């Protein structure tokens, strides 16, 4: 029963989405009014100011018409209804998973009556239909939030802009709803239900993996919001400061959400695998990375647009393309173009609708971009040596990185279509192709915060960057003398990380102490710097720490593989692991062989570690769970394998110095983003709370 209600709610979402697309669009509204009421249309000659939709730039007349047609309060009605319907549909699907309703193939394919409740809920997001539904739900949430935002900042945005943006969002909700219904309808039933489900993919039975999906789809929905605003801006030929201000929170929200999904993904592969790596350049990872890279580029050139009203076309291009690569990534991972994912292996997959919709939506968007971008002009120019040009260069380089990743992802596929030979593109390709772009990117990244807007002088920059340059050179010298046989690549990595870190800190330092404009107390100076500067500095420092950790752990990694017997002790870095043996335990829906290790550091006991091999009988699949100790100077990563012929247990130990820096760096970048969102919310709350000031 609930499933049918959910199905109906999803259908209604499509209908209301179309309704929103039509009702909010001034163009459509006029056309439909003319059709519906011939008297009125004949009374008002076509082309009269009130009904003129031929002249798109004439926003004043249409705006006046629009305000009369729809009262502001009723603006919330449709988006609120759509969100409610989305919650109903998602609730119906979750209910089916919670009560294990195996008449729904979507449930019986990825769930089982013995799957724990939390993972039954998580399983609802993994199959095609569930993921699409989650995306549509996230989109309807973003839709309502944008309605509230545009309504409360009506002074900022012209009415037309708000209507066009909401119209595009309504259309996107309807399109993705239809794609869900055509490709992978989650609410279809079978007449004969299986006795039990086939069980969740054990790889997905993990709390972090469950959390990844909502972050991913919220990030994509945020990108859809940016996309809608960009199209609205293009329709009005108004990609300007106001547009940039409206878009600001959504670029950061999407960036944080996608970044969280990437961090979760990286940590999961780190703790699942025996070889201690955290990034493998596979399709799922790349399709997360692509929109995040472009969102980062957008974040930067949006700031330029807001400050100087330049880079209009480039910002609009990124606003469209960021969603395009996100959508394309969903298509790549959801289709079976590559080796089928374990999760989808049991169901025939159809993602044709997703691809066709992708082509239609973005063909329209890029066409609109082409037709309107030339008529906008690009504001005042800027000097070659200025913060604008540094940030522009940065976003171009980030886009190049994204292009390389995209090519690496689809090249094997296209080549296979042409020649029939399957090939794989792995880390060596990415390293070779990305290093010439990423190294200059990092080198330039340090300059941008220290540069002035509009115009700057080379000698001034030299003075400001002096300290950072000296400190990072000292770092490189120290490391290369201390570890004489080091290959250049990681050395450059560490040097650049030091360069970015010291540049960020010295810029912060200079602004806190030396700046003549700022007052006497440091705290007051910190306040004057503003949340944007602080969040940028946090994120830049985070990236520097991440790179330093990644480079260092790849250089000084120690790997020990031994066949261990109970009582044996294994040396790795400053640590000593004592193997205590393996015991058989029962988990909630799995059996596990859990090994016990006692970890000593300089012969003092630190902790106990319990790597496992789990066996999930429903799917007949084994998974390995490493156990990790995050120490001060590095991670100790231990995993167990099978018993070998002599009766010993294969134990793989990795000592990864500075690995916690990688996780800390990622966290700091995300904190930087959250800081910016939070302060904005708080400031806004303060402003509305005290209307007098």
């Amino acid at each position, binding site marked *: 029963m609930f499933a049918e209600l959910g199905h109906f709610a999803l259908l209604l979402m499509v209908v209301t989405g179309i309704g929103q697309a039509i009702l909010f669009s001034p163009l459509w509204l006029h056309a439909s009014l003319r059709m519906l009421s011939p008297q009125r249309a004949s009374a008002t000659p076509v082309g009269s100011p009130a009904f003129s939709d031929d002249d798109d730039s004439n926003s004043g007349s249409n705006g006046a018409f629009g305000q009369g047609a729809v009262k502001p309060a009723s603006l919330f009605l449709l988006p609120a209804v759509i969100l409610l319907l989305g919650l109903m549909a998602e609730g119906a699907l979750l209910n089916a998973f919670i009560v294990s309703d195996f008449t729904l193939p979507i449930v019986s394919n990825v769930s089982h009556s013995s799957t724990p409740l939390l993972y039954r809920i998580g399983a609802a997001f993994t199959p095609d239909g569930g993921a699409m539904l989650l995306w549509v739900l996230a989109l309807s949430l973003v839709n309502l939030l944008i309605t509230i935002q545009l309504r409360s900042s009506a002074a900022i945005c012209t009415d037309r802009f708000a209507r066009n943006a909401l119209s595009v969002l309504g259309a996107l909700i309807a399109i993705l709803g239809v794609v869900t219904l055509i490709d992978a309808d989650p609410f279809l039933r079978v007449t*004969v239900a299986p006795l039990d489900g086939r069980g969740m993919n054990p790889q997905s039975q993990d709390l972090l993996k469950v959390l990844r999906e909502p972050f991913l789809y919220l990030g994509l929905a945020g990108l859809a919001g940016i996309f809608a605003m960009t199209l609205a801006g293009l329709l009005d030929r108004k990609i300007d400061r106001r547009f940039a201000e409206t878009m600001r929170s959504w670029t950061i929200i999407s960036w944080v959400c996608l970044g969280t999904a990437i961090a979760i993904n990286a940590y999961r592969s780190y703790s699942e695998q025996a070889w201690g790596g955290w990034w493998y350049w596979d399709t799922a990872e790349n399709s997360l990375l692509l929109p995040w890279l472009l969102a980062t580029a957008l974040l930067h050139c949006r700031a330029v647009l807001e400050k100087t009203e330049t880079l209009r076309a480039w910002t609009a291009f990124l606003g469209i393309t960021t969603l395009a690569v996100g959508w394309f990534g969903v298509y790549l991972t959801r289709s079976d173009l590559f080796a089928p994912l374990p999760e989808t292996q049991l169901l025939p997959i159809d993602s044709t609708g997703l691809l066709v919709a992708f082509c239609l939506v973005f063909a329209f968007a890029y066409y609109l971009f082409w037709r309107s971008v030339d008529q906008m002009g690009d504001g005042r120019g800027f000097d070659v040596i200025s913060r604008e040009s540094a940030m522009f260069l940065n976003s171009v380089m980030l886009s190049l990185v994204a292009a390389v990743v995209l090519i690496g992802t689809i090249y094997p596929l*296209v080549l296979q279509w042409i020649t029939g030979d399957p090939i794989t593109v792995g880390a060596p390709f990415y390293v070779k192709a990305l290093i010439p772009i990423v190294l200059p990117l990092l080198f330039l990244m340090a300059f941008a915060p220290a540069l002035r807007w509009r115009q700057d002088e080379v000698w001034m920059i030299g003075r400001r960057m002096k300290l950072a340059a000296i400190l990072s050179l000292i770092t490189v010298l120290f490391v290369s003398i201390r570890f004489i046989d080091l290959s250049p690549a990681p050395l450059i990595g560490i040097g650049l990380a030091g360069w970015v870190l010291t540049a960020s800190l010295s810029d912060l330092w200079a602004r806190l102490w030396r700046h003549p404009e700022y007052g006497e107390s440091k705290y007051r100076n910190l306040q004057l710097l503003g949340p944007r500067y602080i969040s940028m500095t946090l994120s830049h420092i985070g990236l520097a720490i991440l790179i330093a950790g990644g480079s260092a752990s790849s250089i000084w990694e120690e790997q020990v593989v031994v066949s261990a017997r109970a009582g044996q002790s294994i040396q790795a870095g400053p640590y000593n692991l004592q193997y205590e043996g393996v015991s058989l335990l029962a988990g909630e829906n799995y059996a596990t062989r859990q090994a016990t290790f006692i970890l000593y550091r300089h012969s003092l006991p630190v902790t106990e570690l319990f790597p496992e091999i789990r066996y999930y009988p429903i799917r007949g699949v084994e998974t390995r769970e490493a156990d990790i100790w995050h120490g001060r100077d590095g991670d100790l990563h231990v995993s167990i394998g099978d018993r070998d012929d002599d009766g010993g247990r294969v134990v793989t130990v990795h000592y990864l110095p500075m690995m916690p820096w990688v996780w800390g760096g990622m966290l700091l970048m995300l904190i930087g983003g959250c800081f910016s969102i939070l302060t904005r919310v708080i400031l806004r709350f303060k402003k509305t709370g005290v209307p007098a000031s």
Partner: protein
Amino acid sequence: MRFSIAVIPLVLFAALAGVFLLNIDKDASVVPSVLIDKPAPEFSLPPLPGRDKGLSRADLTTGEVSVLNVFASWCVPCRAEHPLIKRLSREAEVPVYGLNYKEKDPEDGVKWLAELGDPYAAVGMDLSGRTGIDFGVYGVPETFIIDGTGQIRYKHVGPVTVEVLEKVLLPKIAELKG
């Protein structure tokens, strides 16, 4: 319509979209199985009680296309698909063999076939489920199409529906028969 660089994104996008749209049918959207195009495993199963012919790999390598249907009396979907297995055996004009999977009591399979009708050319009884494991059975019912040389050419998991029968199984069998 004058040329401008703003058209480049549209052109690039169209090229990419075109490549993917043209290759949309090349998805391998059939349920993949590790056993597809592999020889069927070696097995020899006893007959149902009161019958004299069991089932072994030799039955699948007679040079004729055949179908192997895994069923059990305790399996509700098997009961639902049974009329369609009968139809399959009538219309496909190939021998349909039954693999009676993990019965509690050997008589159960006999009673089930007596009640619903017996479309099978021969039935083998897999009480331990050992042969089922070799065939990679993870949900009953399952239906395999095997060519004359004993190669598994297609596998359907779950109950056969009218749609699966008409759109997948019968055309596949006809194709293999040549």
